[in-house]
């Protein structure tokens, strides 16, 4: 066996299993979902069957044919998405929630990640451990904890409303509001922003900051001209890790969002589990995936803009 063939074989041996895994658990389900989006719902949920079994003969036949295909395949599900404004509105609202969550996570995580990256080496691992410590308890339990904190009898509401009461402001409700959704989303996703930022900031060459200072840059300029641009890969990674899951999440709005706070994830879940309209649920999922892809594409186009000749 020549060297190049054995190289090719080992390449496939290494990349084969993960590729197979992705094919079975990602590509095939996604493909099935994409096909489902063009079909009709079944009478009792699921999809309208394409095969029928004749009760008398027990023979299974394909029901769809060249004449009746439009009884089985349709674009109506997509049309519905664009015709009823509630869906697009919900999309926009969800993008806003996820975007706001990402922004807040970034603002809160950056100083934290920076501090960890600048702290003495022997402390860093411990501090990172503290950041991921919440993962050790169940996600739902942590969200339930927030329900107690934000509830009308919780300390958060009592303290804030007590404070507002001094100025004669009516008590506010926190639980089951968009505020609660974003607050809990930020809480849940914070570590996903801190970790990539920390991984990036920790690698920064301190000599660059010395050089910038030596060449006349103030503290502020050193941050915006050196630290920030060099940390952008970490910012992008953290933003993706927060934005994408936050966009599709349904458990948090379900538990703390009330009727005002629902997001696309809730709607998709509803289509599959409650309305039992799989085709429309598939349409929503596909539109969600597409819009994320388009956004990511736009971002990378923006980031690539040639600035070489600029001074």
């Amino acid at each position: 066996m020549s060297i190049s063939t054995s190289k090719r074989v080992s390449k496939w041996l290494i990349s084969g299993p993960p590729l197979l895994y992705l094919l079975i658990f990602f590509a095939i389900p996604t493909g099935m979902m994409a096909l489902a989006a063009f079909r009709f719902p079944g009478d009792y949920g699921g999809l309208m069957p394409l095969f029928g079994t004749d009760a008398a003969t027990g023979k299974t036949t394909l029901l769809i044919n060249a004449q009746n295909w439009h009884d089985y395949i349709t674009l109506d599900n997509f049309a519905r998405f664009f015709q009823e404004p509630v869906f697009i509105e919900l999309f926009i609202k969800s993008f806003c929630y996820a975007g706001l969550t990402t922004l807040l996570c970034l603002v809160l995580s950056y100083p934290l990640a920076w501090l960890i990256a600048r702290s003495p080496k022997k402390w860093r691992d411990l501090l990172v451990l503290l950041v991921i410590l919440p993962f050790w308890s169940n996600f739902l339990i942590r969200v339930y904890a927030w329900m107690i904190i934000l509830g009308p009898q919780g300390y958060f509401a009592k303290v804030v409303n007590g404070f507002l009461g001094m100025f004669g402001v009516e008590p506010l409700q926190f639980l089951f509001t968009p505020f609660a959704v974003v607050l809990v989303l930020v809480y849940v996703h914070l570590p996903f922003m801190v970790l990539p930022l920390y991984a990036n900031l920790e690698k920064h060459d301190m000599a660059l900051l010395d050089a910038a200072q030596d060449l006349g840059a103030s503290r502020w300029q050193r941050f915006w001209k050196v630290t920030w641009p060099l940390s952008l890969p970490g910012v992008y990674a953290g933003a993706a890790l927060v934005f994408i899951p936050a966009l599709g999440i349904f458990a948090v709005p379900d538990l703390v969002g009330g009727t005002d706070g629902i997001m696309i994830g809730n709607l998709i879940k509803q289509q599959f589990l409650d309305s039992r309209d799989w085709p429309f649920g598939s349409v929503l999922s596909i539109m969600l995936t597409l819009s994320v892809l388009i956004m990511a594409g736009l971002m990378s186009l923006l980031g690539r803009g040639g600035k070489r000749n600029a001074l």
Partner: protein
Amino acid sequence: MALLEIRDVVKRFGDFTAVNHVSLSVEAGEFFTLLGPSGCGKTTLLRMLAGFEQPDSGELLLDGKSLNGVPPEKRPVHTVFQSYALFPHMTVQQNVAFPLKMAGVAPDQIKARVAEVLEDVRLQQFATRMPSELSGGQRQRVAIARALVNRPRVLLLDEPLSALDAKLREQMQLELINLQKEVGITFIYVTHDQGEALALSHRIAVMSQGQVEQLDAPENIYSYPKSRFVADFIGQCNLLDATIRSVSAERMQIEIEGVGTLDTLPVAGATVGQKGTLALRPEKIKLGASVATGNADEVHFKGKVHDCLYLGDVTVYIVELENGMLIETMLPNAAPGRARFFDDNDQVELAWRFDAGHFVLA
């Protein structure tokens, strides 16, 4: 008035004294070198000049004004870092424009001055490259251009050539000399390479353990080292421990144990009975099968070749005197086709003029 004055500066890290009562002054337009072995406090002194460290006591003055408490970004002093510290996310011209932007120079002027300084370091055609796309020597030149572009009063260079290979280093040394002449800015250059220091500097401060051992022009440092440390550190040197036997106005007789007495130049403050070291450069010793001339000014010894080291342009011979003492000497391999003149165990003679060596009091 000197441009830069360092007055009795001390810097401690815990109970370790990195810079120990250093005083020196640097003139405008000078190429000044801090030379010393690793850990002697060169970088620490430079960082105090740049403003990254504060002296524990003493004072730094620029143009007669104290620099104490002035932060690095406010000092008209720029540094070329050992690692270059080029901003990896900026092109060459953005790197060079950085200090001008920080100083708030108008954009059209920035353009002109960046172009000008890139021409000085011959990097015009690399203006739009990223630092990662440059060779070591080119990065070095970008770092120098960036530090020079808004004309600091003093340029600090911390072992800027240590990451380059020997050939490139020599070329960059020549470029540095020319550049310094051209821009006329005071350079303070840190190195532990004595050859580099001798080649580049107007004056050298040899440092050891946080102190300045000797401050002088390169030729004086080389020919008249003030201490055994300096003699040993600068270039190859035979160090012969000896005792002074007699002193007169133009000669001094010293006794090297087991070798005998010989003449040398007197040094200030020498008294009979004092101990010291005769520092004798290998290239000042004559070597041959028979070199005796009978000249009374010459010292003369017999021995045999103990070892030889072929270096291409010269061959270094270690000669063992009859009493077992080893003396290092060298011969240029100038004769055509000639690789070496002697082999191990060849009988040879050594001779040097009485004023060839330099006596260093202990």
